[in-house]
C-alpha cells in the first residue's frame, strides 16, 4: 500500500525530486492510531501485516538528567531492576519476601554506617556486618525465581529483549510472535504497577561491572565521560548515565523506590506497538493491563539551565591508546526551529565519501582515517552539543585534525553550500526515513522517541519538512552563531610513550 502511494508521487514529480516532505508519508500516517488511557498513559499502534510478529516499546520520559549528586546512575539501576519482576513474576510468596527484602535493607544500612566511619571502623564489626548482609541476601534469595521475566519471553519465541537508559529517556522493548501480544501487556505493566526490587544489591555489582566495561577499561568511554564533564558545569548532561562508582556503592533500595514513584507515572510513559496486531484488541489489552496503574502528577522539569560558555575548555587524556579528537560546541535543544539546519550541516560534512570532512581530512590530506560531525550529543531534550570527531591517521597529530576541522567550519561560515550538496542531504534524509519504515522495532522506537520527546509522533515525518526548508544562508547563520572558540570543548586522547605503557 505504501509502495503504491509513493509510486504515484514519483510519477507526478519526476525522477529527480522523487518525494516531497511529509505529505508523501500520508498513507503510512493514516495507519497509525493513538489513544490515551484515563491515567494519562499514551499508546501508539501501527498495523503492519507482513509477517505474524510485532514489536513493543515503552518510552519513559525519565533518564539520568533526573538525578542529583549522590544518586547518579539510579535511573539506569532501575532499568536493570525492572526485569526482576513483580509479586506475580520473578518470585514466590511475596508477603514473606517483602519482609526478607526489608531485612536486606537493614543489614545494608548497618554495614554502610560502619563503613562510613572510615579508618575508625571496627574491623571485627565490619566482618560481622558483612556476613549478616550476606545472610540476609541469602534469606531473600529463597523467594526468587531467577530471571523468570526473560524466561517467559524466550519461551514464547520473543526476540530483541532489551532496555536502554540515556540522559533523556529510558526505553524497554522486545518483539514477539503476534499471537502472544498479551504477554507483553502483562509483563510490561507489572513492572510499572508494582516492581519488586529483588536482588537489588547484587544488581548494583552487575552495574559496576558495566561501568568498568564501558567506561573505565575503554579509552573511548573515558574520552566521552571527560568531554561531557568538561562541556557542562551545571546541567546534568555533564554526568555519566551509568553513574559514579561511589554513588553506585551507596544507592539503596529505598532510594530507587522513591525515584520510581516520582518518575514512573503513567503520564511519563508512552507505549508503542508496531506489527501484525489488531488495534481494537491492543486498546482493550492496554486498558486491562496498563489501566491498572494509578495516575500521578507529571514531575517537574529539570531546573538547572547550562549557562553560556565563555571560555574554551580543553581536556587531554594520556592513555595506552591511539589518538582521537572530539570537538564539541553548545547548541540549542533538538526541538529548536533550527533543528533542520543542524541536520543539514551534519549531512554536508559527514554523509558519504563525497562529504566535506571525508574528502578533505581523509581522502585528500590523508591526515585522518575518520572525520564527522553530528548534532545532539548527549541528548535532544535540553541544549546539547554539535560534536566533531576525528581519528588521526598513523603518524599524524590531533592538532593537524583540529586545524583541518576548523578550516572546514570556517568554510561553512564564509561561503554558501552548493544547491547540489544540500539537495543530496534532503534526498538522503527521505531515503533514510523510508528504509526506517521496513523494520517493526526500529519504527516503533522512532515513533516512541518523537512522541515522548515532542508529544506528537507526527514530528518524525515533519522533521523532513523542516529540513526541506533549509537554505544555504541558514547554514552560514547558524555556523557563525555556534562555532566559536569560547563555545567549545576539545577533548583528546594522546598516547603514552611506549616506555610508560607497562
Amino acid at each position: 500500500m505504501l509502495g503504491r502511494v509513493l509510486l504515484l508521487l514519483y510519477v507526478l514529480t519526476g525522477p529527480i525530486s522523487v518525494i516531497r516532505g511529509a505529505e508523501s508519508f500520508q498513507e503510512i500516517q493514516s495507519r497509525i492510531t493513538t489513544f490515551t488511557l484515563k491515567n494519562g498513559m499514551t499508546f501508539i499502534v501501527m498495523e503492519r501485516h507482513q509477517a505474524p510478529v510485532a514489536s513493543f516499546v515503552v518510552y519513559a520520559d525519565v533518564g539520568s538528567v533526573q538525578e542529583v549528586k549522590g544518586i547518579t546512575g539510579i535511573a539506569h539501576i532501575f532499568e536493570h531492576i525492572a526485569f526482576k519482576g513483580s509479586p506475580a513474576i520473578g518470585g514466590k510468596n511475596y508477603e514473606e519476601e517483602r519482609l526478607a527484602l526489608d531485612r536486606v535493607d537493614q543489614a545494608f544500612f548497618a554495614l554502610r554506617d560502619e563503613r562510613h566511619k572510615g579508618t575508625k571502623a571496627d574491623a571485627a564489626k565490619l566482618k560481622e556486618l558483612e556476613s549478616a548482609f550476606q545472610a540476609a541476601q541469602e534469606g531473600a534469595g529463597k523467594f526468587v525465581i531467577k530471571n523468570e521475566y526473560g524466561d517467559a519471553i524466550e519461551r514464547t519465541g520473543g526476540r530483541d529483549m532489551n532496555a536502554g537508559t540515556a540522559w533523556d529517556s529510558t526505553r524497554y522493548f522486545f518483539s514477539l510472535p503476534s499471537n502472544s501480544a498479551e504477554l507483553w501487556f502483562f509483563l510490561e505493566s507489572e513492572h510499572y504497577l508494582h516492581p519488586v526490587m529483588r536482588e537489588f544489591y547484587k544488581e548494583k555489582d552487575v552495574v559496576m561491572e558495566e561501568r568498568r566495561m564501558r567506561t573505565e577499561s575503554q579509552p573511548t568511554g573515558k574520552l566521552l565521560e571527560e568531554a561531557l564533564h568538561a562541556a557542562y558545569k551545571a546541567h546534568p548532561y555533564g554526568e555519566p548515565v551509568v553513574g559514579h562508582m561511589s554513588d553506585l556503592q551507596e544507592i539503596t533500595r529505598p532510594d530507587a523506590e522513591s525515584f520510581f514513584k516520582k518518575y514512573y507515572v503513567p503520564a511519563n510513559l508512552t507505549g508503542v506497538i508496531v506489527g501484525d496486531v489488531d488495534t481494537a484488541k491492543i486498546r482493550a489489552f492496554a486498558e486491562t493491563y496498563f489501566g491498572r496503574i494509578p495516575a500521578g502528577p507529571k514531575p517537574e522539569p529539570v531546573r538547572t539551565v547550562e549557562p553560556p560558555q565563555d571560555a574554551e575548555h580543553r581536556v587531554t587524556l594520556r592513555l595506552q591508546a591511539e589518538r582521537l579528537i572530539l570537538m564539541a560546541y553548545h547548541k540549542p535543544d533538538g526541538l529548536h526551529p533550527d533543528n533542520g539546519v543542524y541536520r543539514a550541516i551534519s549531512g554536508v560534512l559527514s554523509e558519504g565519501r563525497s562529504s566535506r570532512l571525508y574528502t578533505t581530512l581523509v581522502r585528500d590530506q590523508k591526515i585522518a582515517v575518520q572525520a564527522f560531525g553530528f548534532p545532539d550529543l548527549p541528548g535532544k531534550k535540553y541544549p546539547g552539543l554539535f560534536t566533531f570527531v576525528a581519528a588521526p591517521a598513523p603518524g599524524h597529530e590531533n592538532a593537524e585534525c583540529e586545524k583541518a576541522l576548523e578550516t572546514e567550519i570556517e568554510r561553512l561560515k564564509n561561503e554558501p553550500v552548493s544547491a547540489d550538496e544540500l539537495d543530496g542531504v534532503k534526498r538522503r534524509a527521505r531515503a533514510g526515513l523510508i528504509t526506517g519504515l521496513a523494520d517493526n522495532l526500529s519504527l516503533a522506537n522512532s515513533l516512541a522517541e518523537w512522541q515522548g520527546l515532542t508529544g506528537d509522533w507526527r514530528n518524525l515525518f515533519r522533521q523532513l519538512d523542516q529540513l526541506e526548508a533549509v537554505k544555504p544562508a541558514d547554514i552560514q547563520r547558524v555556523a557563525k552563531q555556534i562555532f566559536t572558540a569560547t563555545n567549545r570543548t576539545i577533548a583528546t586522547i594522546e598516547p603514552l610513550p611506549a616506555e610508560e605503557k607497562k
Partner: protein
Amino acid sequence: MRKLLSSALVFASVVFAQPGKPVASFKDLKFPAPGRIPVPEPVRFQLPNGMILMLVEDHELPTINVNAMIRVGSLWEPAGKAGLAVIAGTVMRTGGSVTRNGDQLDRELDRLAASVEIGIGGDLGTASIFCLKEDIDKALPILADLLQHPAFPQDKIELSKIEQRDNIARRNDDPQGIAGREFNRVLYGKDTPYGRVAENATINAITRDDLVAFHKQFFQPESVIVAAWGDFKVAEMRAKLEQAFASWPRGGRPWHKVPAVESANRGGLYLIDKSDVNQSSVMLGRLASRSDDPDYCALTVMNGILGDGFASRLFSQVRSEQALAYAVWSNWSAEYEFPGVFTAFGGTKSESTVKIIKAIRHEMDRLATDPIGDEELARAKDSILKGMAFEFDAISKTLGRLATYEFHGYPRDFLQRYQDGIRAVTKADVVRVAKQYLKSDQFAVLVLGKEKDFDAPLSSLGKVTRIDITIPK
C-alpha cells in the same frame, strides 16, 4: 507475493474487543493460534556465463536491493600479503573502474541517496546496491562495471593501506577486541589462514599488480550468486540484470575450496597482561562444528541452556546470583564450510578473575553431570521454534538464506531440517553432547587483564602461556 500477504491478513481481521480481566500469572495466558508465515518463492535462473540469480518482488517500499555473494576471501590470500583481500574489496569500489572515476561515483551516488558497495571478508565477498527504485538503471551498470573492470588507481591503494595500518595501530585499544582476536588465533593457529592477521609488513608488501592478479583470479561470473529484491517486476529486473552481466565472460577457474582447519588440541591457559584495565576479559572454549554436523542441533540446544539468553545458566548464576559480570554468555558458532568457535565469555573486575573462570567452568561441567530441567530444555527449544516467524519477517531474510545455502552447498530446505532437528533434541542428547564436547579441562582459557590485581595467580590453574601483543613495526 500479494496473495501471500493477503492470506496473512486474514489472521488479523478486526474483532471488536472489550477490556478483559488481567491474568494473575503469565502462565495463565491463552494465546490464539500463531499467524501463518508467508514464505516468498524467489525466481531463480542462471546466465550462460554461469552466474546464478534469485529475484523476489517486494512492493512495500519504493526501493531496490541487490546483494551479490562472491567466492573470494582472505582465506585464499598469500600469508606474506595478509590484508590483500580487504584492500582489493575496498579499492574496487573507491578506485572506480577503467571508465568511471571513483570520486565522481562517490558524488553521484551520494546525491542519489544510493549506495554501491564492495567488501571482502574471510570466506565471502559481497557486492551490493541499495537505491530508490527509479535509480536502479544508474546503479546496476556501476556495480557490474566495478566487478569486471576495476581500475585500482595508486592513490586509492595508498588510502586503503593507510586505513589498514591504522587498524593495526588501534587494534590494541579495545580490550574485548584484543581478547577475541587472540582467542581466535589460539584456536585456529596464529599462522594459519584462519588465525593470521595483517601486519605493517604484509600491508607494505602489497602491490598494484597483486591486486590486479587477485581480482583476475577470483572475480568471474561462475563464482557469483546475486539476490535482488524490491519494488520491481521480476521480468523487467531479470532483463536489466541480464543486460548488466551477460557480457561478463566465464573465467573458467574452479570454485575454490576452503583450506583445512588443523585439529590440533590447543587447550591451555593464555594471559595478556594489560596494566590499564580494571576489568578482565575471560574467554573459554574450543573449536566448534560445522552447521551440517549431525550434532549441531543438540549442541545449539545445549548452548541455549548454558549461556544463550537472559534465563540461561551462565546469566542466572554468574551474573544474577554471583554478580561477577555484566557481560557473560556462551556461543556455539558453527560455520557453513569449516569448524567455528565455541566461546564462553565473562567480563569481571580484576579481583575476581580466577573466580569467574571457576564459575564458568562449573556451569559447563554441571551440564554433563546435573540433570537438565524440563523447563530449561523447553526454553532453549521454544525460543528457536516459536520464534521461527522472525526468520521470515522480511523478504530479504528468506532470499538471503536461500542464496547463502546455495553458495555454501547446503540444501534449500536446510532451515526446515534444522527446525526438525531442534524439535527432536532430548535431554539425553544434551547430556551426551555436553559430555563429548564440553571437556572444560581441555579448553583454551584466555585472560586479558591487569595481572597484579588478580584474586589469585592464574598459574594456580595450570601452566600459563603469555601472549605478547606488541605491534611489530
